[in-house]
């Protein structure tokens, strides 16, 4: 026979996670179901792929996809290389390395909008950079880094801004990975007479692979959400997938197409995560 207190005990764990469950069902589950509904229902109410057909017939979709992939291909490798170099540098624990660590991490506190506005103040025709160049007599008239019909230049300003803003995130993950590598491995390597390169390729790199995998995954997924910086620095001159979600939803009130854009971003993210998790699996952890 089960006593009342035992019964109560059985229910208690469920009761405790009920609020979280209700929250998730209401704020994640319900919108997700509605999004699916929007994605697969046409304006006339027919169920099917009509929204995907409309979307793929719009040249802006292909431009947005191309730009997002370009940004991803340029930004992510650069960020990872830069962050790795910075992490190795800080991990060498030179005198005053903590100050350098803090300076590198400053952009972590910035939102993408703030970073874009700071970038605008540097690169605009009346910005700091143009002022320096004009005052030093290097140029007579301002050099336009972004603006009407200058999307290829804006692209590089976006890349620079993103590098500055988001590299610290990769840096922090990689530094954490480097800090947990036991010194004993390096001491043993010294005994066997390993060179610095050998130590890097045979000890540092394999042991930071889990961190590298996380950093790559996070950055790649974040790259698909890139929006604020591009939006503020180039308007819709450089359409990107996440920007189109906002544009279709907020500006055109085209909820179905916005949801379809969102759905496609989610699909790409799932695919990329699967690729990363499958092909970058760290073998030494399976032992």
């Amino acid at each position, binding site marked *: 026979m089960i006593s009342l207190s035992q019964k109560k005990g059985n229910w208690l764990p469920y009761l405790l996670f009920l609020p979280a469950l209700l929250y998730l069902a209401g704020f994640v589950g319900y919108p997700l179901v509605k999004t699916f509904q929007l994605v697969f229902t046409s304006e006339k109410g027919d169920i099917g792929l009509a929204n995907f057909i409309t979307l793929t017939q719009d040249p802006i979709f292909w431009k947005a996809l191309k730009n997002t992939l370009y940004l991803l291909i340029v930004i992510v490798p650069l960020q990872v290389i830069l962050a790795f170099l910075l992490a190795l540098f800080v991990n060498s624990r030179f005198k005053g390395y903590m100050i350098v660590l803090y300076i590198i991490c400053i952009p972590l506190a910035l939102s993408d909008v703030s970073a874009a506005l700071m970038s*605008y103040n540097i690169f*605009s*025709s*009346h910005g700091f950079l143009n002022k320096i160049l004009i005052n030093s007599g290097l140029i*007579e*008239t*301002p050099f*336009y880094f*972004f*603006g*009407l*019909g*200058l999307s290829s230049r804006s692209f590089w300003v976006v890349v620079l801004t993103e590098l500055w803003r988001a590299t610290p995130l990769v840096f922090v993950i990689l530094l954490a990975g480097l800090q947990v590598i036991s010194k004993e491995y390096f001491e043993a390597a010294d005994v066997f007479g390993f060179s610095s390169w050998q130590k890097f390729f045979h000890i540092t790199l394999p042991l930071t692979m889990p961190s590298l995998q996380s950093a790559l995954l996070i950055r790649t997924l974040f790259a698909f959400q890139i929006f604020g910086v591009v*939006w*503020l*620095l*180039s*308007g*819709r*001159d450089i359409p990107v997938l996440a920007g189109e979600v906002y*544009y279709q939803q907020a*500006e*055109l*009130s*085209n909820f179905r197409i916005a949801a379809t854009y969102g759905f496609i971003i989610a699909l790409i993210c799932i695919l990329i995560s699967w690729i990363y998790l499958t092909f970058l699996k760290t073998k030494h952890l399976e032992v």
Partner: protein
Amino acid sequence: MLKKLVVLLLLCMLLTTSVYAQEALNFASTQMVPAAEQLFAKSVLLKGFTDDSGINVEFIPMEYPDLFTRLTAEVFAKKVTISLIGELHGGLDLMNTNGLLDDLSGITLPDRTFIKSLADYSILGDKKIYVPWMQATFVMAINKKAFQYLPEGLKIEDITGASAKWTYEALLNWSKKLNEEFKVPKLGFPMGPKGLWHRFLHGSIYPSFTGYQAAAFDSVRAVQLWEYLKELRPYIHPSSSVWESMDEPLLKEEVLIAWDHTARIKNAVIEKPEDFAIVPCPRGPQGRGYITVAVGLAIPTGAPQRDNAVKLIDYLTSPAIQVKMLENIGFFPTIQEAEGVIPEGALKVLTNGVLTQSGAPDSIISMIPSLGAKAGEFSAAYRDAFTRIVVEGADINTTITSLADKLRAIFKEIGVPLV
């Protein structure tokens, strides 16, 4: 004794309620809905009216669909409780089409001259459906430095006075001259994603060149317009594509000539009233096109307290109150007499420009079409046309023909006549 007292109390309550119901005039408005503006409407604007006339006014801020539904029900049930309506031109037009509004032709408001273009727009057929109450519009802001580089044949007075010489051709020549002088483009538009650039395209330049906002989208005259914009393009500041309002670029002197909504230029003029002139938009071959957001005061069919409603209209369109509204909610006067009451300074600079524009005899006033959920697609068509033709160099005819079909489909779907 107690029974008597209760009956007496009930009688008193009924009497008070009925007296109050008779006295309170219901003024339903889709304007001044935000909390701060409601406070201004109730505690300043209408309180002043009640103090002067002794007539109580119940201010009812409402969204348009609610107002339309309520008024339709009241008019058809012949139990109208709303005495006065404050709404945009488009909304009042629709109410009138549904037989909800009274003819205001008989109303005379002494000592005020309504701006002709606005007064003309308030008359539909033979019926005056509203009295122009307030307006907002899009104008050009000029840094006075630019006046030193006027092209040949163009004088400052031509621009500030909206003469026939203040044309798009003159704007092009002026921009060219400024470019030669400063070595950078000095003309700017709010082309950023949140900027109102599309309003310039459909509400200003399209009517100026073709006479219509969308009806002649793919006409021969429209081809001339796009050729003009291609010619103007090198003189438009490249950063225009990220600007959402023109006050900052004007203050930083990134541009010397800018076009935008009055509310989005206001800050520059308030900060440096001596540096800027607000002038009308230029004219094109068909006239001077510009958007006006006209707000009118209308009386519903069978409205109670009609005489009191007229008194309230009289009060709300008086010069002092018009200036008070400009100072508090940023809407401009609709009567010429207000110009004399506005104190010197930024508001005067802004109002002069707005009143000169709305008083220009060659005005082609554009009202933003009521396209509901399709409004975004309508705006996007104009922006897309500019990007494709002017920025990317696509063929004019092919582009405007394909987009014209899209535009016509939008109007057809919503059931709004092509403007």
